[in-house]
């Protein structure tokens, strides 16, 4: 009994570890692929070489990130079987075909056209090359669509029956694919990927603006990234709100944990900004909250009653502290993103966007924020689904493969060592590439003077706009 529990916990840690590492790369490459598509499209349309240089700059980074995404993804497709074979046997008939569709429609498309995108410039026509870039971008989005459908089905299962050997069997594919939480989750994740990329691009732009405010590539990427922040971050808040309402409808217990609602509130529930969840006593210690705001946000009514975890047996509750905190981290970062977008609009209006070192520093600090928010969001939704793998139907403890704890522990250690070493190196290379100034290699003026800098630059770089 104790032995079995250990294997379950170890397998969960292993899955959490490998999937968390994995999601970092797609979260970045979904957004970056679309960005590359936009850059190449703008280059073809305007023939402005700044776009082409930016395309080549980010393409190298994309190649490394995508490679890490591919190899860490292969791990995922086998991990279902090695550690969660009972889950695979039972849920395979429903989620297996969706994943097969992901491979057939998305993975092949990305991988097939990636070669042309990376190596084909000059070998094929510009149009055909652009089509390849579009296919890669489209592939990343298709992949997100299928895998989010799978994940959403595990959260809000629909359209299935259960056969005599206990397998989930499909009854209505439309209901399975378009299960109740899928549209919300998909929009929320794709926007998150776009925001993640925007803040990375913005941070790199900001870094190079701090070094050289005139660098046209740095200005362009910073400007584009800040447009994304200003437009997409507020949209994400709206999408997140819809997603939360949907979660309350289908997985109310998860929302109770997110909100720290240990007790029921018959006359309007407060929104807790802070608190220390106390699992033993089933209460929120040191709680600081705004009365009735939670009811307003989720039910759009100040006095709407909301049930709390006191209505849920202990063994069917998710681990509240993790869900409570990861949710707050995600929301906090989201708010900061909105703020950055808003400040960027103000600076743009005042024509100071490229001339605000303090803001550039802030943008650099925000560079990794998207990754943290994505991870925190996924931890909220995945840990919030516990103790189930298929919500309401299959317990996590009943999903595990018949492998013994030492085997899972050994493979877990191997994954940790290998991932930190290899993906650590990859991240270092990406940072190194980001540290390199975008644009052509420009020799420094031999005797730099205050006035010569910009004129010389303009002489060497006809595409550079004169300084303001």
């Amino acid at each position, binding site marked *: 009994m104790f032995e079995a529990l250990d294997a379950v916990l170890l397998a969960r840690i292993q899955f959490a570890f490998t999937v968390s590492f994995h999601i970092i790369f797609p979260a970045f490459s979904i957004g970056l692929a679309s960005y590359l598509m936009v850059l190449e499209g703008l280059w073809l349309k305007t023939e402005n070489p700044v776009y082409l240089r930016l395309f080549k700059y980010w393409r190298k980074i994309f190649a490394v990130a995508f490679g890490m995404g591919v190899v860490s993804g292969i791990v995922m*497709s086998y991990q279902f079987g*090695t550690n969660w074979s009972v889950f695979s046997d039972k849920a395979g008939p429903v989620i297996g075909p969706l994943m097969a569709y992901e491979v057939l429609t998305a993975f092949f498309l990305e991988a097939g056209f990636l070669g042309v995108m990376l190596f084909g410039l000059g070998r094929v026509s510009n149009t055909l090359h652009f089509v390849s870039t579009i296919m890669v971008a489209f592939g990343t989005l298709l992949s997100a669509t299928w895998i989010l459908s799978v994940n959403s089905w595990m959260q809000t299962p629909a359209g299935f029956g259960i056969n005599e050997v206990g397998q989930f069997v499909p009854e209505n594919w439309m209901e399975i694919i378009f299960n109740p939480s899928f549209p919300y989750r998909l929009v929320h994740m794709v926007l998150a990927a776009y925001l993640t990329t925007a803040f990375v691009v913005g941070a790199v732009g900001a870094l190079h603006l701090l070094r050289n405010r005139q660098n046209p590539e740095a200005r362009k990427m910073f400007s584009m990234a800040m447009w994304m922040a200003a437009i997409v971050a507020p949209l994400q808040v709206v999408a997140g709100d819809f997603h939360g309402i949907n979660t309350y409808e289908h997985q109310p217990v998860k929302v109770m944990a997110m909100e720290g609602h240990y007790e029921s509130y018959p006359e309007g529930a407060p929104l807790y900004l802070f608190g220390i969840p106390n699992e033993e006593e089933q209460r929120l210690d040191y709680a600081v909250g705004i009365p009735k705001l939670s009811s307003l946000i989720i039910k759009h009514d100040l006095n709407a009653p909301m049930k709390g975890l006191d209505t849920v047996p202990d063994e069917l509750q998710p681990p509240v502290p993790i869900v409570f905190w990861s949710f707050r981290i995600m929301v906090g970062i989201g708010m900061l993103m909105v703020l950055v977008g808003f400040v960027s609009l103000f600076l743009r209006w005042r024509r100071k966007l490229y001339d605000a070192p303090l803001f550039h520093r802030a943008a650099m600090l925000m560079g990794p924020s998207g990754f943290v928010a994505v991870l925190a969001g996924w931890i909220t939704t995945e840990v919030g689904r516990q103790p189930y793998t298929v919500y309401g139907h299959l317990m996590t403890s009943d999903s595990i493969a018949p492998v013994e704890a030492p085997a899972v522990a050994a493979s877990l250690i191997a994954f940790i060592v290998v991932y930190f070493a290899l993906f650590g190196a990859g991240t270092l290379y990406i940072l190194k590439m980001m540290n390199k100034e975008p644009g052509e290699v420009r020799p420094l003026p031999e005797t730099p003077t205050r006035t010569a800098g910009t004129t010389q630059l303009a002489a060497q770089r006809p595409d550079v706009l004169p300084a303001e």
Partner: protein
Amino acid sequence: MFDLPTVWAGLLALSIFIYVVLDGFDLGIGIVFPFLKSDSDRDVAMNSVAPVWDGNETWLVLGGGGLMAAFPLAYAVVMPALYAPFIIMILALVFRGVAFEYRWRDKAHEKIWDQSFFYGSLIATFCQGIVLGAFVQGIEVDGRAYGGGWWDWFTPFTVTCGVALVAGYALLGTTWLIMKTEGELRDTAYRYAKLSALATLGFVGIVSLWTPLLSPEIAERWFTFPQLMFVLPVPTLTAILAAILGWGLITKKDQVAFPTSIGLFALCFAGLGIGISPYIVPRAITIQEAAAPDSSLLFMLVGALILLPIIIGYTVFTYWVFRGKVDPDAGYH
């Protein structure tokens, strides 16, 4: 008529075969990587597969995902049974996969990534051979789960299969290099292609004779009349192809050895199929028993029939874009 599980068994076999051939040659290049003469030879060898390798590896993901989708019970039994070789294989694939980009990004540590590429390719191949061998030798099943021990996959037979596959992939890799490169690199490739061809054919012989000894059921298929008449073409064709391969390597016909090697793999694959069918977990679970419900299989079949030709179409397109001998100066790095 064929029923849905049989069709899916065929489609899965096809994707695994495509995987073996495609990733086989780029893993094979990893296996011979340290034996190439110069850094520039290694650059060219790697560039010859850089545009296509992750497309090649996607077939492995299809193999895993397809098995889970079409035969969830088989997936649930095979993965825990072959826990260690699968985990080691995917970790090895991580080592070699990252090398494709890393070695260009960090010239100071290029040697480390070359090692990572070599050992990753070698170990991944060896593990695939072990998986194959363990599969052929049979997997113990208890109810709807794996019933054997941790080390059942580790036997003289499976280790032999592992080494055999290393030789086989080296053959695919070197003959690919013969086809795609020129000069000194091509000469080196010819030398190692001959060695790996001899080793491959030797191992094919050993494994073919060993397999029937594992089970009377397999022996019956190969050595009794009238079944013998149906299976006889396999060894006959193998002998013919081996002769063509030898001729291509000795007379240095650049375009002959690679397709012939693929043909040899196809024949081995067919031989394997004869030994295994109608099981999906040999001698324990049949294709029919492991199959997902028809509603799952049909839903996927519609997509597969539309998408697989398209995938094959643009895969061919990619190979066509990068056709001919590799230009040593090309690449975006």
